[in-house]
């Protein structure tokens, strides 16, 4: 099972990669939406986990790329920040499947990931 993690915070990205690898997933990490789009041109994933506020292309642009341009139904989990309900609602409207609020428990992310992948 392959997961694409799109997060520009290196420490958080390392943390997510470490925990999900322990669960047996194959993880690819990128730091912005643009990089994610380039990888998605040639690769398929079972799940995308994306931050919202990133340089170059943000999370909403990535969701739009996956759902509208690529027409892929890959599950997407959005990493949002506290109090950013507007962005979360927008992400759901565009096709995101779930969200977790930073700072989050790694266990919560694992459970939500497993639920969507299965």
């Amino acid at each position: 099972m392959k997961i694409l993690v799109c997060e520009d915070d290196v420490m958080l990205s390392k943390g997510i990669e470490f925990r999900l690898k322990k669960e047996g997933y194959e993880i690819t990490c990128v730091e912005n939406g643009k990089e994610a789009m380039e990888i998605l041109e040639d690769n398929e994933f079972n799940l995308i986990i994306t931050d919202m506020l990133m340089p170059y292309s943000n999370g909403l642009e990535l969701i739009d790329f996956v759902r509208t341009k690529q027409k892929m139904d890959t599950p997407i989990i959005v990493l949002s920040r506290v109090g950013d309900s507007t962005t979360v609602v927008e992400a759901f409207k565009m096709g995101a499947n779930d969200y977790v609020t930073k700072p989050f428990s790694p266990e919560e992310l694992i459970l939500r990931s497993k639920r969507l992948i299965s």
Partner: protein
Amino acid sequence: MKKILNIIILENNNSLINSIEPIKNELNVTIVENKKTLFEHLSNNTFDLIILDSETSLTNVLTVLKDIKNDEKWSQTPVFVSHSESNLDQMKQLKVVGFSGILKKPISLKKLQTVFERLPIKKEITEDKIYDLSYLRMFSGGDKEFEAGIIKYYLENSNIVTTELQNEFDNKDFKKIVKIAHTFANQSYFFGYKSLYKNIQILEKEATSEKTKNVKRLILEITKQNNQLLTQLSKI
């Protein structure tokens, strides 16, 4: 938990103990009246501070100070000498032997507190652990190598972040400050320094509103707090 200072005083009048009375709950004070008893106590206990009252006779104080400094078991313990009259020659002699400072009589509570604040042990007391690695451990699942990697990354990079914050403030680029603060808050959360995390969140909010004065103050405070955090993390 606050440590109670352990102090031994050589004096044969009550001038010092009376001065200490208002803060005696913060101190564990032992009063001795002669050299023999002093060294008996030094042999059986560890003290944070020794105070010698020169009224017992300077010759005696000099001898006692020399004996204290000549024994490695307590030679590192700070020794203060209390006295009534300033005598330059006497002070020179005491300095040669290695006293830590003078307490001129009458000794006020303020003077004593200043001495206590300067003690090495007092510095340790104020340096209570400011971090909490519970969140990092939630991610690591107990993997020490991963934890060390994250701490190393933060030690190497967070100073760059605080410098960037200051640079962007100088450039009046509040949007960049918001972006940097957003990421930095998440990073600092790994180390459980709540006050730092909260300040970074407030900085993100204040920078969004371009509140220059508050942003400037917060960047300074965050830099200071982060330096304290780095000092402690580097000792792990």
